[in-house]
């Protein structure tokens, strides 16, 4: 399936498609499963089952992408998983195979659905019994209502003669013990048999049950009330989320911005992301870095600036806007650099990250990235050390050509057998160059780097 051509959409759009189609499929699945209980939406357990059905395709979509069976940017894969996740669990979709024993995960889920159906049946029986008992008590305690009920039962009886014969013993004088209740039982049974689904409406029209009782118990009123409450809760959550993500004007770094940056960092560094997806994230991060340069720095990405022209952020007295810019640049760049320290980082990920830093080199960005890059030279992965060393050399040549690093650094070819001591020597050599270039205040270890609030 991963090899099947499909429009490549941003992953968030595909997850949204899975969620939206999943909502429709989940509603239909729950309705099918509990079709025998007309007011099944009146029960919280039905809603938990519904939300579980909504979540299953989303989690499955993520899992299949994680295992490489599909790509989470594929429109067709999103539609297939959202609509046909049961077939996928059953192994009935060619090209999508669940690894190992994972298809058996569906079995406990099915068992849970059955338990919910059982619980709903129990509650339904209980509520129907209570309703019937309440109505029967109201009728039997009021002779006028009993007479009206008798009239109704005879009106609708399939066999009026049989009904008459059934109730005659209870109308004898003197009345036998419990005659009223037995009379009601016979009439009730007759009415229920002749009008099994419409009896509530008939009782309501004869004023034997109130409008509220009729609506609540026989017109799925409880289900409508609970559905409205769930819809209202979802709407309130959506409003709250909208307000929350757009909040935080004080730092200039809102939750939404933070979330989108984290999202694109994830996509940018994702091992099995599509080329187009990585390109999208590269473009986004590039734009964000450009946007984050402080107002008083006029150089942009790719435009070389010497130290004398534009001192780095950390070496200056920072204005509030420069502080915000610094925070934003740290939030964008440092997680990418931090990934370089992971020994098993994929070569492609390391190349992408270092290329982005070189693409955006500028004096204002260097104060954040260069110390972090120098520290990342300690990675055990010698290929990544080579990449970082080249990146530092490229930045030095572009932005600080006047200050040369040690010759040993240009000639350094990291190897697998280097000792930590050798590596530290090169790290210290880069730090010496950096301190010579911008001064010691510019050194900000990666671990202490400020993060966006």
């Amino acid at each position: 399936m991963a090899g099947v051509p499909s429009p490549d959409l941003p992953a968030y759009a595909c997850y949204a498609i899975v969620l939206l189609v999943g909502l429709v499929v989940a509603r239909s699945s729950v309705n099918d499963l509990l079709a025998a209980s007309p007011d099944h939406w009146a029960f919280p357990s039905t809603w938990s089952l519904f939300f579980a059905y909504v979540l299953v395709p989303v989690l499955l979509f993520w899992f299949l992408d994680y295992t490489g069976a599909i790509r989470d940017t594929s429109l067709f894969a999103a539609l297939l998983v959202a609509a046909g996740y049961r077939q996928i669990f059953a192994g009935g979709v060619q090209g999508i195979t669940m690894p190992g024993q994972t298809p058996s995960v569906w079995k406990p889920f099915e068992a849970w659905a059955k338990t919910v159906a059982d619980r709903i049946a129990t509650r339904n029986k209980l509520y129907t019994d209570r309703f019937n008992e309440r109505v029967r008590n109201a009728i039997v305690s009021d002779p006028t209502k009993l007479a009206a009920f008798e009239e109704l039962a005879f009106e609708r009886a399939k066999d009026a003669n049989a009904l008459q014969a059934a109730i005659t013993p209870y109308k004898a004088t003197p009345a036998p013990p419990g005659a009223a209740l037995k009379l009601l039982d016979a009439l009730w049974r007759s009415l229920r048999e002749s009008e099994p689904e419409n009896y509530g409406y008939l009782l309501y029209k004869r004023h034997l049950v109130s409008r509220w009782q009729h609506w609540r118990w026989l017109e799925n009123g409880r289900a409508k009330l609970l559905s409205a409450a769930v819809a209202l809760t979802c709407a309130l959550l959506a409003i709250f989320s909208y307000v929350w993500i757009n909040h935080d004007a004080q730092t200039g770094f809102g939750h939404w911005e933070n979330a989108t940056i984290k999202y694109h960092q994830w996509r940018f560094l994702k091992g099995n992301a599509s080329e187009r997806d990585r390109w999208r994230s590269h473009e986004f991060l590039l734009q964000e870095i450009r946007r984050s340069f402080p107002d008083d720095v006029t150089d942009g990405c790719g435009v070389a600036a010497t130290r004398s022209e534009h001192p780095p952020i950390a070496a200056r007295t920072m204005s509030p806007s420069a502080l915000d810019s610094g925070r934003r640049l740290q939030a964008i760049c440092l997680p990418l650099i931090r990934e370089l320290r992971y020994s098993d980082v994929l070569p492609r990920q390391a190349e992408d990250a270092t290329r982005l830093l070189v693409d955006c080199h500028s004096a204002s960005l260097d104060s954040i990235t260069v110390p972090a890059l120098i520290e990342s030279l300690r990675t055990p992965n010698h290929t990544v050390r080579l990449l970082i060393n080249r990146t530092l050399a490229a930045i030095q040549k572009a932005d600080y050509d006047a200050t040369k690093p040690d010759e040993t650094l240009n000639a350094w070819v990291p190897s697998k057998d280097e000792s930590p001591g050798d590596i530290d020597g090169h790290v210290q050599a880069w730090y010496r160059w950096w301190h010579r270039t911008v001064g010691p205040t510019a050194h900000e270890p990666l671990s202490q780097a400020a993060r966006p609030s």
Partner: protein
Amino acid sequence: MDGYTLGSRSGLPLDKLAAALRELRAQDLVIIKGDFSADKVGEAYIYVPPDALGYADMVLGRAR
């Protein structure tokens, strides 16, 4: 749904419905809440899972 509704929809009198339900219950194909003897099956609550609907239809049809 209750026994009255199921009896009406399947076209079965309540005594035959009770017999059919006993057969389905013996095979663990339906969930029945309440007494489902012939005179009380109307008040019982019956749930047929979707995967058993075909077989339940067949049993009810045969009882008819």
